[in-house]
């Protein structure tokens, strides 16, 4: 399905990012993983792991310099890297809020910006942001996290306009809860209660996520841009 495609996934080492790495590798893409620390868990010959802190402009710039030198182009980017600190706003440390802003929002901006520069030459690209049901459900404790995830939808929508003439689409997938390291940081009862309130009251599976990723990535989706798709009936 992805023969010849070069795919970059941020936050590639764990959770949803790792699922997507495996999916694209299985479907014959060359995959670049950006992670804050060395990714020793994936040794596929078509996988290239770069240590990049997406919240740092210098680090992203250096990472893309390596991508440009090694591959000369880029087809699909998935902005998945994110930090979640769930805490009541009145006691949320400013440092935690900054970290979420830097990784979730600024990181998505920086990676998309550099990706578009590379995609421009081939006049083809797919930028997909991983959003969250928190944007719609606005759970207590997730003020900054939900705000950053709302912001990346808006970011994609504006970039969709700016990049449309280069045949680059920008979309957002708002995922629901899936069994990951990030989920384990939250009280299980709280997550279960949120899931019970969804129109489709179950946790997401990997395939639920990969289905929409494939849709946004498809050659046939060149007319799909500035869209946010939520899973599980969230809207």
């Amino acid at each position, binding site marked *: 399905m992805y023969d010849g495609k070069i795919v970059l996934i941020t936050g590639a080492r764990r959770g949803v990012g790792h699922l997507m790495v495996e999916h694209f590798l299985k479907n014959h893409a060359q995959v670049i993983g950006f992670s804050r620390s060395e990714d020793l868990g994936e040794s596929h010959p078509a996988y290239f792991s770069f240590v990049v802190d997406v919240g740092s402009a*210098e680090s992203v*710039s250096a990472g893309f310099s390596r991508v*440009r030198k090694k591959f000369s182009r880029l087809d699909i980017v998935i902005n998945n890297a994110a930090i979640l600190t769930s805490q009541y706003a009145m006691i949320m440390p400013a440092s935690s809020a900054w970290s979420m802003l830097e990784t979730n929002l600024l990181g998505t901006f920086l990676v998309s910006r550099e990706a578009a*520069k590379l995609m*421009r030459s081939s006049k083809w690209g797919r930028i997909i942001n991983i959003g969250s049901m928190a944007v719609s459900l606005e759970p207590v404790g997730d003020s900054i996290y939900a705000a950053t995830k709302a912001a990346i939808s808006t970011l994609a929508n504006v970039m969709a306009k700016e990049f449309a*003439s280069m045949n680059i689409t920008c979309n957002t997938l708002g995922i629901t809860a899936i069994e990951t390291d990030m989920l384990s940081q939250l009280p299980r009862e709280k997550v279960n209660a949120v899931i019970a309130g969804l129109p489709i009251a179950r946790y997401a599976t990997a395939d639920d996520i990969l289905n929409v990723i494939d849709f946004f990535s498809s050659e046939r989706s060149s007319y799909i841009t500035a869209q946010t798709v939520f899973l599980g009936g969230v809207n």
Partner: protein
Amino acid sequence: MNNKADIVMEAIYKALNTLNEERSTDDQIVVGPETCLFGEGSVLDSLSLVSVIVDLETLVSDQFDKSISLTDDKAMSRDPVPFVNVTALKTYLLELLAE
């Protein structure tokens, strides 16, 4: 052997010629030292200027193995801005490379 100024000028011309390749034959930019890139008399619309800047940053950064940014606060607060014409842009790039 080309000196630094020649290499930079060549990169600017290359970025503008790349833009010309994307334009119709009756919409070609005349490329030369006085070609105006920004402000009154500019031959580029805003998206075309962005394209030239992006290509130029990449070309110069790769050529000299040094990260160059043409759109930071320093560039945009300069009077006149470095994009007023090709010669001014070359001068600014040489300053950045000398830092």
